[in-house]
């Protein structure tokens, strides 16, 4: 069974086409990395998968069922969790209130807090603080906490590393690897490839809205520079 399957997805913003006939599969329990340069359409692909952006054509299947047109909040309740680009937090809410927002998918607040604090004890210290005043790393931890606390079946991660120190990125991907070992299917988008290729089972390279190369991480390593430099 595939946790996520994209069949012939095309997508556009107004009249600007962004994705062209994308086929992509995330097998259950696997980590798939989607790599590619700026503007390739990686984030759009995740937005389509999560129901935030309707595809112009093609089908999105989650756990074998077609979910085109299903609103994002419904997909979230069915176990899909997209941690968006930037900081996926509510900056004007406190950490506690941010955690409270994670209970809409049906997880009890006590469970959310317990699961978050085991991995990120720092959040417990900052519980009453406004999330916007946390450091960049702490904010990303809070965003990641949703991926851990709501016990999703499918986790979509968009550029976890953005604007963070390398050591924090390492830490975050350590946690991604742990989550993967627990059997969660993960589709992770990254611009900077080396870290993510270490945790991925499969990888695909997206350039100008098309998948130009796909396979196992070691097969792709050498193609990457070509993709980025456009050679």
């Amino acid at each position: 069974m595939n946790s996520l399957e994209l069949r012939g997805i095309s997508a556009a913003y107004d009249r600007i086409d962004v994705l062209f006939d994308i086929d992509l599969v995330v097998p259950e329990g696997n980590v798939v990395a989607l790599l590619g340069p700026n503007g390739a359409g990686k984030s759009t692909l995740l937005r389509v998968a999560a129901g935030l952006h309707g595809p112009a054509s093609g089908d999105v299947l989650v756990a074998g069922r077609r979910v085109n047109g299903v609103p994002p909040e419904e997909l979230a309740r069915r176990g899909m969790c997209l941690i968006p680009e930037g900081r996926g937090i509510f900056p004007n809410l406190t950490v506690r209130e941010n955690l409270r927002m994670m209970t809409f998918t049906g997880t009890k607040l006590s469970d959310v807090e317990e699961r978050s604090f085991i991995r990120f004890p720092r959040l417990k210290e900052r519980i009453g603080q406004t999330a916007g005043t946390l450091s960049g790393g702490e904010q990303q931890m809070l965003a990641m906490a949703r991926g851990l606390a709501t016990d999703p079946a499918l986790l979509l991660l968009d550029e976890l590393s953005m604007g963070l120190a390398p050591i924090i990125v390492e830490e975050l991907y350590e946690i991604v690897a742990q989550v993967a070992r627990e059997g969660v299917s993960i589709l992770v988008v990254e611009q900077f490839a080396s870290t993510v290729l270490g945790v991925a089972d499969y990888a695909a390279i997206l350039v100008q809205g098309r998948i130009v190369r796909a396979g196992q991480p070691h097969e792709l390593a050498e193609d990457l520079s070509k993709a980025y430099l456009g050679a």
Partner: protein
Amino acid sequence: MDKFLTFTIVGLTLAAIYAIIASGLVLTYTTTGIFNFAHGAAGMLAAFTYWQFRFVWGWPTPLALVVVLLVLGPLFGVLLETVIMRGLEGTTDTVKLVVSISLLLFMIALAQLIWAPGISRPLPGFLAGNKPINLGATTITWHQAITIGVAIAVAIGLRLVLTRARIGIAMRAAVDDRSLTTLNGAKPNLVSMLAWAMGTSLAALGGILIAPGPGLEAASLSLLIVSAYAAAVFGRLRSLPLTFLGAIVIGLVEGYLAGYLPQNQYLTGMRIASPAIILFIVLLVLPNPRLRGRMTRSREYFPTPTLAGAIGFAITVVIGAVMLATTLSDPDLITYGRVFPIGIVALSLVPLVGFAGQISLCQLSFAGIGAIVMAHLGAGGDPIALVWAVLIAAAVGAVVALPALRLSGIYLALGTAAFAVILDRWLFNLPVLSVFGLFDINLFANGSVSVDAIELFGRSFDDPGTQMIISAVTFALVALLVIWIRRGRLGRRLLAMKDSEAACATLGLNLIWTKLSVFALSAGIAGLGGALYATQLTSIQPGNFELVQSLQLFAITVVGGIGAVGGALFAALSLYAFLPLLVTLWPSSVRWVGLLPGGAGIGLGRNPNGAVHDVREGFLPLLAARAVLAAMCVAVAGAYVLRLTNVIDNWAFVVLLILFPVIATIAAGLSKPRAVEAAAGNDEEIRDVPLEWRGIDRPWTKADLEQLDRYLGLKEMELHDVR
């Protein structure tokens, strides 16, 4: 001391009401990004409904309150959110504003339709029969005590809901990042609906509490509640605690002014206008918002007018006016003569709002200034007064613009509305003001001022037909001026400023100077329109230049298409020709005709380009088919001759005037070249290649070129020559 306490209580009661209303406004604004100008009108409708239940149908007070506050109020809020507001995502501030202003106009008209104005409807305060509570030094009525108590309860209740309840937290979360709330599994539509339900219910509560004071009158009650908006601005439309603080400041100021302001005829208006004055001041001292670097993506698109089109438009307007002036009776000419002066005022909105993206809700106030100048300096018919009207209105416009320079969007709308209120409530009602005995300032001294017709070379243009033609020619000239600006350097600057102020600033464009000039220009045009309007009315009073009329004109001009001069003509024709005509044809429509302008504005969300855009698209084939166009002109001229020779009457003439263009458009459509359809067939084959990649993987084809031309909006005719 007793007096001080008494007026403290008066002030705190007002503060309580403002706080309740403003908190509802903040709630809907923050969660959905729409500033609801009709918020006060919702409170007004609630007060009327409560009055109906309680005093006409004799329901017990608790039942009436529960039905209005907990059933009808929330239901109405949900209705507004689902039917109207949800469709406004992705539109500009202007469109959002027009929709909510139209809603305000619609609700006022609706209230006047159900509860005929002019009838006294006493609404006693709560427990009005009971003896006031004795506080020792002073007393407090039960209504006052209940009002203050309710406001405190609302403050505590909102605090609890927004910080303790999960749905309340989700409402605040939606302010930060709406799409992220959906990723969390919260239902954003439910969140918005709840916000609107709560907000409208708070407006209803405020409306019921405030109405016993000023009494049940639809328009003034709706706009009186505007005072509460000032409180919301204290909190920058976001912070509830600051909003409550603002409400206390405004309420107390109003209370103490009532108690301590010297009783003279110059200052009574100032007390009534004080919330608007405070609003103006708060906008001035509010920390400067940062320039927004993000480009606002919008659905609006206004093409550059062509020179031929502009001249054609001007000539058509003048010919139309001549036809009207020679065929209509004098009373009709007075009725329909307002079209062109008001059209000029509407034109003043085009460069300001349409090009520069600034918002002004006080254009008729500028028109009023022009009218006053005309009345006083134009006594005896001196045409130079028109120049003075333009210059003085432009100068006032520049002065108003000075504080407005640092504002944008909704704050600018509020600032200009506050200016209009200050004029309406206070300055326009001042008696003759003697400045140190040196000279007198006289506005509308006796409530109304007479205006003399313009006199030139010893001839007085006092007959309505000539006045109409003068106004129409002026309208046509101003329209040409506006188009000339659009096509020139200033127009480019204004459009660029509308798209991105930050980008303009980095390019070295002087934003302040540009904004100041467009404000002055716009106010000057409005002043000219006002001056001509005044000569047509022959007697003017403050009521001719009120905020509500500015709102109506603003809304309908945007409906017509604020980016083009046609939109201004559309607004003037709709409001001052079509509506009176409808009432003439169908007298019983007078009861509900007031609903139409608001209704039209509410429908705007669907087509932000405006109605004129569609009309012009419809006529494009006709303009291309020269022979058909010429035949139509001949036919219209023939009908005009028949009318002048009294072969046909006015009604037949009007029918022909409508019929000929319709027939011509159909005829032109039939003779349309088939090339367009052929090109459409090619689309299918080449659609697989994105437009910007054409010509890369294989050579350009003619079909590619045509598709690109159409995408870029180049006219086919122009391109044939090139090829």
